[in-house]
């Protein structure tokens, strides 16, 4: 009898009744709402919380013909509606997408160290973005700028190459796929380093992108990624129960009527699409996809039917808060959000590991 080498970096919570899951799920939802409110409220320009709420309520209810008085006007309204709100929305979307993808990757590869960037998505996106930054002069940084598109395409190409290589080499076995991903990622990372070294003038811009940024978030970014991210997350959430079946092994999944290869492909494609979309608008934000699912597993146990939806909400809340820290920690300067997620996340994760080890 072998215990799965399945996600067990942290001792997963044992069986929990459904009530606890409902509690955690609503807790995560509340955390997301509260962090979003904090995200739009805190910033360089102080905005009165009451007026913020009134403005949001007014905007939300205006299609119904309801007018809420006491809202912000002028600069305040512009800061709220054109700067902070899209930024918070984008952070929530990216965090949710990365966390769900990470949980799905960990499940599909039965590997606790899997994260959304595993199969070459990060390296591919990095190469795409670096190529554009280095070779396309005066790249417009707007919503349909070339950098997000190149990063998106690069991420999908990286994962696509890993899938092709892995499938050609050994069918749908998870280990073959992982190794193919490692090969593709190393190759693309080397190519990215080469391009970067030959264009040292652009080093700063490249690094800025690599470390992740949400500073230029606009509504158009949100609109750009929402369809892909939304569709991919929906597919992943629907796959939760099937991933629970896959967790008992390929042969047993097959004996239960699930085709392991097809399921793995579907989940990898959906998770990669979510990751590519997130990377395109935010750069490489590490740690979210790795840590959030592990923390969630501690709370609700190992079943993907529970881990995926809770990760979605918790990932969104975590990244909104991380972005808040990135904005205020060294204000008026901004920290790269990838630095914040690692700085805040790593000690937190270490603490959880320590607590888990002591409890055992």
């Amino acid at each position, binding site marked *: *009898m072998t215990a799965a080498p399945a996600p067990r970096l942290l001792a997963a919570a044992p*069986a929990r009744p459904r009530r606890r899951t409902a509690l955690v799920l609503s807790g995560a939802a509340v955390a997301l709402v509260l962090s979003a409110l904090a995200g739009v409220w805190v910033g360089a320009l102080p905005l009165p919380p009451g007026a913020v709420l009134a403005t949001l309520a007014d905007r939300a209810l205006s299609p119904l013909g309801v007018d809420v008085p006491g809202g912000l006007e002028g600069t305040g309204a512009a800061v709220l509606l054109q700067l902070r709100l899209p930024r918070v929305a984008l952070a929530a979307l990216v965090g949710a997408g990365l966390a769900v993808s990470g949980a799905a990757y960990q499940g599909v590869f039965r590997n606790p160290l899997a994260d959304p960037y595993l199969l070459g998505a990060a390296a591919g996106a990095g190469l795409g973005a670096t190529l554009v930054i280095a070779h396309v002069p005066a790249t417009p940084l707007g919503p349909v700028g070339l950098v997000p598109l190149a990063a998106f395409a690069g991420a999908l190409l990286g994962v696509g190459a890993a899938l092709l290589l892995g499938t050609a080499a050994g069918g749908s076995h998870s280990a073959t796929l992982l190794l193919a991903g490692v090969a593709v990622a190393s190759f693309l990372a080397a190519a990215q380093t080469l391009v970067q070294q030959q264009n040292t003038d652009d080093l700063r811009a490249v690094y800025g992108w690599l470390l992740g940024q949400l500073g230029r978030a606009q509504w158009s970014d949100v609109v750009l990624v929402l369809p892909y991210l939304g569709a991919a997350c929906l597919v992943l959430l629907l796959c939760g129960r099937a991933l629970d079946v896959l967790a008992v092994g390929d042969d*047993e999944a097959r004996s*239960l009527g699930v085709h392991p290869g097809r399921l793995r492909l579907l989940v990898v494609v959906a998770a990669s699409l979510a990751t590519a979309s997130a990377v395109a608008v935010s750069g490489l934000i590490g740690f979210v996809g790795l840590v959030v699912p592990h923390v969630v597993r501690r709370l609700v*146990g190992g079943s993907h039917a529970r881990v995926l939806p809770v990760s979605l909400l918790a990932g969104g809340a975590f990244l909104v808060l991380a972005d808040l820290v990135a904005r205020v920690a060294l204000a008026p300067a901004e920290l790269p959000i990838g630095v914040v997620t690692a700085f805040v996340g790593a000690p937190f994760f270490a603490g959880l590991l320590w607590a888990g080890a002591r409890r055992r």
Partner: protein
Amino acid sequence: MSGARVEVVGLSAAHGRSRVLDDVRLDVGPGGWTAVIGPNGSGKTTLLRAVLGAHPHGGQVRVDGVPTTAVPRRERARTLAYAPQRPVVPEGVSTAEYVGLGRTPHRALLAAPRPADRQVVADVMARLELTGLADRAVATLSGGEQQRAVLARALAQQPRVLLLDEPTSALDLGHAQQVLDLVDRLRRQDGLTVLSTLHDLTLAGQYADRLALLSGGRVVAEGTPAQVLTAEALAGHYGARAQVVTGPHGPAVLPLRAPGHDRG
């Protein structure tokens, strides 16, 4: 739910280029228990996986006369249940949830468990004395308890055929007997057909009603335990020195040391 006839006809399978099974023929009657025995590497596990449809193979596997390849995957999963030699036990999943996975082929893949599914799971767990462990994480159960949980998951499929790959390999003698007694009781109560591999020849001889001796990828002997378990067969195919003793429920194998060694 009653057992089905399982026929294996001209089955061949390979690992890469090396042929592992060659023209294997088996016929397990409804409600029968055939144990596949054979030395290490004789292809026992591959045979079971091929019958399951998890290993590419030539030839045919028929359940009640219908080739398994002609049946959709989910329908096949409602007929054949499988317990592997080394089950992968997921982390952080309760025993009840684990057993509940057996209901997968009975509902839409995206659907949540229905009350009827919960009832089947509760019944199976009660029969296998797992009710008290329902909320324990299955990964924390003992070897014997995990083996019962795996059996429970297979039974929750409400199959007609149980494919068991070395159901006792991780267990000590007492727990091995408990599990085999359980399988025997279940097949008699439900009329399940059982096709298992068993490396312990005495246990195979005591529990199965027919044995198939696999050697070099071929079935070299098939019949009742008394017909198959002979000192000659053990010498010829296992290279083993053993005496076969006849017990009340079938033959038992007693390994013998080579002559010429005095304990002095």
